[in-house]
């Protein structure tokens, strides 16, 4: 075999290796999810959704953690959305190239890399203790809001960057002030991108477990929260709790709850991708 042939062979081999690597993660994920569907699908019925948790596996439902997750989702959205979009707008439209904006930039990039459990420690000390919110839905939502802040800020900036400057120029030419231009032109034009970022960030928040455990969310809550200061659990914590039990019945419960959680996560991701595609088409 000549060198040329050897090199060709290696090239072809790597091609197949590359395809294999690209598919292996997805294939494993499909196998995992398939296994979970087999374990958990038979467990899912209406009662599983609406039942309260119980000491008996077959009588347990996910009503309270599901409602906890809904509460967390809504509160986190309400808290994080205005702050992070405002911060994104500031950085993209107002910030001048100076030390403050450089600091803000490196800081946000760093925050995005801080492990989520560290946010839990922050929330535990500041929201639960110093602000005396206790292990409440509100304390959990505040903690997760800080966690997803950098994600939405980055998405907001990208979305604003994508708005063509001609739109801005047209508005300024008509005598609009900076804020009028942003509010009436830039934000509507970038709303699709911002929305995508917000939904992706919230889908991450729904799946978070560790920071809420640290904040003090409970594995067992008898009732769904009725106000922001109530105790709560969330789906991932319920799953974690069930995984830690030795009985097979609880493992099946965990699989069933995972199906619900994945459904929520994937639907949110799907919506986000849908919005992004629609927005990108509109922008062109």
């Amino acid at each position: 075999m000549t060198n040329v042939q050897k090199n060709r062979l290696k090239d072809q081999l790597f091609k197949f290796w590359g395809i294999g690597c690209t598919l292996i993660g997805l294939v494993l994920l499909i196998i995992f999810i398939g296994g979970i569907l087999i374990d958990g699908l038979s467990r899912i019925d209406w009662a599983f959704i609406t039942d309260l948790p119980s000491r008996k596996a077959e009588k347990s439902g996910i009503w309270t953690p599901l409602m906890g997750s809904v509460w967390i989702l809504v509160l986190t959205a309400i808290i994080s959305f205005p702050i992070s979009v405002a911060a994104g707008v500031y950085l993209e439209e107002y910030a001048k190239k100076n030390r403050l904006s450089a600091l803000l930039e490196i800081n946000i990039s760093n925050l995005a890399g801080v492990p989520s459990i560290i946010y839990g420690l922050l929330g535990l000390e500041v929201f639960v203790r110093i602000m005396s919110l206790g292990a409440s839905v509100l304390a959990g939502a505040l903690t997760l809001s800080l966690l997803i802040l950098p994600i939405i800020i980055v998405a907001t900036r990208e979305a604003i960057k994508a708005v063509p400057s001609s739109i801005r120029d047209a508005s300024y030419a008509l005598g609009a002030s900076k804020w009028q231009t942003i509010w009436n032109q830039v934000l509507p034009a970038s709303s699709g991108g911002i929305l995508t970022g917000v939904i992706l960030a919230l889908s991450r928040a729904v799946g978070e477990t560790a920071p809420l455990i640290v904040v003090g969310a409970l594995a067992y809550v008898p009732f769904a929260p009725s106000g922001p200061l109530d105790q709560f659990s969330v789906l991932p914590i319920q799953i974690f709790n069930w995984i830690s039990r030795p009985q097979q019945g609880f493992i099946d419960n965990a699989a069933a709850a995972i199906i619900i959680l994945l459904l929520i996560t994937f639907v949110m991701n799907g919506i986000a991708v849908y919005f992004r595609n629609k927005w990108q088409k509109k922008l062109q």
Partner: protein
Amino acid sequence: MRKIKEFVIEKSLLSSALVTIAVTVGIISVLAFEAFSFFQEVSIVDFFTDTQWTPLFTKKHYGILPLLTGTLLTTFIAISVALPIGLSISIYLSEYAPKSFRKTIKPLLELLAAVPTVVYGFFALVVVTPFLQQFIPGLSGFNSLSAGIVMGIMIIPFVSSLSEDALFAVPKALREASYGMGATRLQTAFKVVVPAASSGIIVSIILAISRAIGETMIVAIAAGQQPRLTLDPTVPVETITAYIVQVSLGDVPHGSLEYKTIFAAGITLFAFTFLLNTLSFRIRKKFREKYD
């Protein structure tokens, strides 16, 4: 009037941006404050040299080393999985794959990172460990091997996505020069494109390591809760993050030494990820300038 309004709006936007600074300051001061008070009761030398971590036992030891080795061991296994696979993916996608394939597969790969980590924990404990036990007879029900492998699968998109961006940014002219001399795509990829994109690839690896160090639920579920100083991947270990979860699940009164241990552990974790993130930010800054 209009000017005042504009001014107020700008300042309130600025204060939103400053919230991010407040978060960092908050994290550092909370960790530092509690860790400081921890180190008034436990010697910092013991913390770094004692080989046992037993704050919840009657005979207490406060050596972070077992938690640290647990963390580094699971991280090492995860990177050993994610690095070769993620890099191969990025090279395949940027140098070989047709555009349409690239466009469909990238969001699907990102999906790997969108799956909640508690779900991966379930995979590791319920699927991967029993599977591996067929081949490794001595494998304990909790072990760093399956936790690490599953964590590696989770962080594949962190490596592949950023690396692919870096490879893709390498000017086409360099590839053409190499092809023009009779190099195969493989030779061009490894001898020209990868070296030219090395800083971007390094950034992706650093961020993946940082992510693996801070990962919590997979290791808390599948690696165990037994701090021990070992590099054996088949036995239960405990990572820093898993320890924090373990304490948080129990009923630890505020102000007790046990309560403070999670902050001491937390600041160690934070220091690691902070260093890695800062390093990657620096490299990225430099790398961006190179191509502009």
